[in-house]
């Protein structure tokens, strides 16, 4: 293993490690624009130049492999001057429109200028190269070529990660610009990662731009529930509103995040968000809705059924299991066998639900029917009423319709409710309440609340608790975790 001396420290690194990686591991930050750990090394921004003894020229830390005995200096006057000079070059044709730029506050040019330069410009404003200002490129992105520093991260992302290769650097020299290749549209499933990758304000998210200055945002770790992959994410929020979702890069699951996953927060404030109950098609307060649902459940007696859901947390599935026990029905199912695995080679899972593995825990602990058996009983007419989370119920929407069984559904958004549901009860989203999910790899992940639920909207376990109470039973739940008693 090669040993190098970096800023006086002796480091032992694996063969093939670059100077930038070695420095990073030793806690020495080397500024960079074009380098990204998950993209090929292009070495073009020249921001990471470092001094290597016996090399007459400064070398790019991103592309220089550590060799035994190498002596690297990342803080010499020569290095500092090179950083200042590269920044000067990057800024001469930059519009310096920070006050109206949405990247301000998380901009590589601003940050590095403050850290490594603070020099006055020697370039007359009237000499600047003008390029095309913002224009929409694809459903999610806006491109401002004038702010671009041509690091080519976006180009490499599209050719190396999504392999859709929509982007290219056109032209040459300082009239170079990023553009779509002929006949392409930038609508791959991961396009918003480009806005994250862009170190400056060239690529911005059409969804997020101008919604919130980034220095007002607070960051809360969370998990994407868009499919069984269960990407780690970060919700950026302020004053009770989520403004965007970003990936929380990790070795287990994800570096990136898909565009659909990023938009998941939209359901919180969507027009179809449920804050009240529904009976048939009429809005109704939660309490009378619960009472009505309880009445129908009592009517159905032994012909009632409870369906778990791979879209619900382990705890809420456990609460459903308790409800089934209180109703003394054997028509209960926590069995959701989706084919799992990454279907696009990147992140999107064949299993569209986030917690089939979590629901399976309930099947193991509490038993119940297989999904096909449940389906068969529904078809046979033995089940007259089904209590289910809306998306799980939608899996059986044909059988529900054919059998005429009543559906008591739980939903966060009206759009999830299968047609013909008899009653729908609102519950709080997992951005608002805690829960445990198990992804396709079997990784257990706790989701913590990011924002508060709308007034009157309760966590599902509480809705179930009340529903049981209206039927004269008690689930004895004071928290989501209570439902797990006796299970672990």
């Amino acid at each position, binding site marked *: 293993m090669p040993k190098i001396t970096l800023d006086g420290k002796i480091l032992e690194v694996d063969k093939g490690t670059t100077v930038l990686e070695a420095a990073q591991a030793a806690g020495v930050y080397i500024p960079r624009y074009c380098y990204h750990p998950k993209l090929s090394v292009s070495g073009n921004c020249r921001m990471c130049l470092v001094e290597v003894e016996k090399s007459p020229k400064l070398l790019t830390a991103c592309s220089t492999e550590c060799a035994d005995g190498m002596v690297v200096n990342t803080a010499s006057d020569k290095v500092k001057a090179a950083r200042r000079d590269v920044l000067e070059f990057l800024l*001469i044709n930059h519009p310096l429109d920070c006050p109206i730029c949405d990247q301000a506050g998380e901009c590589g040019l601003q940050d590095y200028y403050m850290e490594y330069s603070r020099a006055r410009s020697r370039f007359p404003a009237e000499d600047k190269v003008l390029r095309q200002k913002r224009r929409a490129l694809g459903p999610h992105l806006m491109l401002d070529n004038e702010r671009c520093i041509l690091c080519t991260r976006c180009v490499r992302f599209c050719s190396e990660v999504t392999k859709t290769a929509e982007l290219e650097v056109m032209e040459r020299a300082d*009239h170079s610009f990023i553009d779509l290749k002929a006949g392409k549209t930038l609508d791959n499933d991961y396009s918003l990662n480009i806005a994250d990758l862009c170190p400056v304000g060239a690529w911005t998210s059409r969804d997020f731009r101008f919604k919130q200055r980034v220095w007002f945002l607070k960051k809360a770790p969370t998990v994407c529930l868009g499919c069984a992959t269960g990407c780690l994410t970060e919700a950026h929020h302020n004053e009770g509103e989520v403004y965007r979702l970003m990936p929380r890069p990790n070795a287990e699951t994800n570096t990136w995040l898909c565009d659909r996953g990023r938009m998941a927060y939209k359901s919180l404030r969507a027009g179809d968000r449920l804050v009240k109950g529904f009976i048939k098609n009429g809005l109704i307060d939660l309490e009378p809705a619960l009472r009505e649902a309880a009445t129908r459940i009592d009517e159905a007696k032994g012909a009632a059924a409870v369906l778990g859901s791979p879209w619900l947390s382990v705890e809420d599935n456990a609460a459903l299991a308790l409800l089934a026990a209180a109703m003394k029905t054997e028509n209960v199912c926590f069995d959701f066998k989706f084919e799992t695995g990454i279907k696009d080679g990147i992140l999107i899972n064949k299993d569209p639900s986030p917690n089939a593995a979590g629901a399976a825990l309930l099947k193991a602990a509490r038993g119940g029917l297989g999904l096909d058996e449940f389906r068969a009983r529904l078809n046979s007419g033995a089940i007259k009423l089904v209590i289910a989370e809306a998306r799980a119920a939608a899996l059986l929407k044909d059988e529900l319709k054919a059998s005429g069984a009543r559906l008591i559904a739980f939903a966060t958004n009206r759009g999830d409710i299968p047609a013909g549901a008899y009653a729908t009860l609102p519950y709080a989203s997992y951005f608002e309440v805690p829960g445990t999910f198990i992804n396709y790899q079997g990784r257990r992940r706790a989701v913590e609340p990011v924002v508060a639920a709308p007034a009157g909207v309760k966590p599902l376990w509480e809705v179930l608790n009340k529903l049981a109470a209206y039927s004269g039973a008690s689930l004895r739940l004071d928290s989501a975790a209570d439902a797990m008693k006796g299970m672990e």
Partner: protein
Amino acid sequence: MENILLRDKVAELEGYFAAGGYRALKKALAMTPAAVIDEVKKSGLRGRGGAGFPAGLKWSFIPGDAPGPRYLVCNADEGEPGTFKDRELILKNPHALLEGMAIAGHAIGAASGYIYIRGEFAAEAVKLEKAIAAARAKGFLGRNILGTGTDFELHVHRGAGAYICGEETALLESLEGFKGQPRLKPPFPAVKGLFASPTVINNVETLAAVPAIIERGGDWYAAIGNGKSTGTKLFCVSGPVNKPGVYELPLGVTFKELLEKSCGGLQEGKRLKAVIPGGSSTPVLTAEEAWLVKLDYESLAAAGSMLGSGAVIVIDHGQCMVKLLQVLARFYHHESCGQCTPCREGCGWLEKLLNRLESGRGTKKDIDTIVSVAENMMGRTICPLADAMAMPAISFVKKFRSEFEAHAAGRCCPPDAPVKH
């Protein structure tokens, strides 16, 4: 002395063959590749494209045990302003190039080679195609050369007009069908070049010198020239001389000899002001520095410039150095591939500074900025294009500062310059 490269009556295969052509190939094919490389090493032949890297050494970098194909590429993308020797060589002596390539192919174990020729050289590309067809018909190229079982297929590929494609890795990108942009090194082409295979890239003039070296021996070639600068070199002389053109002379000839003996001296009434000795990207020399300088790799380096491609640009007192540098800056700004920040932004900045000065709108401060910007570009990019802009910029200002200052003071050009503002 006799010319090795620019000879008469060898433009067609018959003439070339009659003059002893393709005998070296036969000889080389009977030698081991290592022996061929040794002979070229012994000759001291150095890259004629500009960098002057020893050719034999370059060939020996091809890993002997590497599986898969190897490639030989001839860089005929002659684009350095002031340079027009390869074109002449291709027109007058194309078979020396083809024979040299076949020998080099044998030496490095390449069964195919490419000649990447500048897009503007249409007639030259046709000339090469015809020469290749003629050589193939006689069994000097193609499959089973001269019945030896050795294959060497040669292809001509025309460029699309980018100066940067003369840089060897940009050339490879272009040859592979991509945008011509230099690659990060390492890996060097000898390890991972064309189609990710071991590749040697040599200039036209370098390869064309190989047959004579094989035929007459490395020692014979090494005896020509000056010290480590062996052999003859094609000098392309442009500017106000009586007989501009391409001249083949032993390395180490003085500028004075080249100017007076070969080029018939300066045109009447002209006074020598400066010389760019090795193509537009090499530092300029003043008349005093240039007059007795020996034109070879070491002597020019000692004089603070470079032999480069051997393009000798003669500048007389009627020329404005600010204007000349402005022309160069316009060229490099246009040709920068745009990949590396310092070159992409710096070339344009320099052109703008020079536009100001040249048009009388510049200041003294702009002169210092030119030097500072050029220095900030030097040695900080993937390929030497930034240096190619910076070196003339720094040397022009350093050596002819009074002309830049005259422009900054609104007086524009020196007394006998013809340009008036």
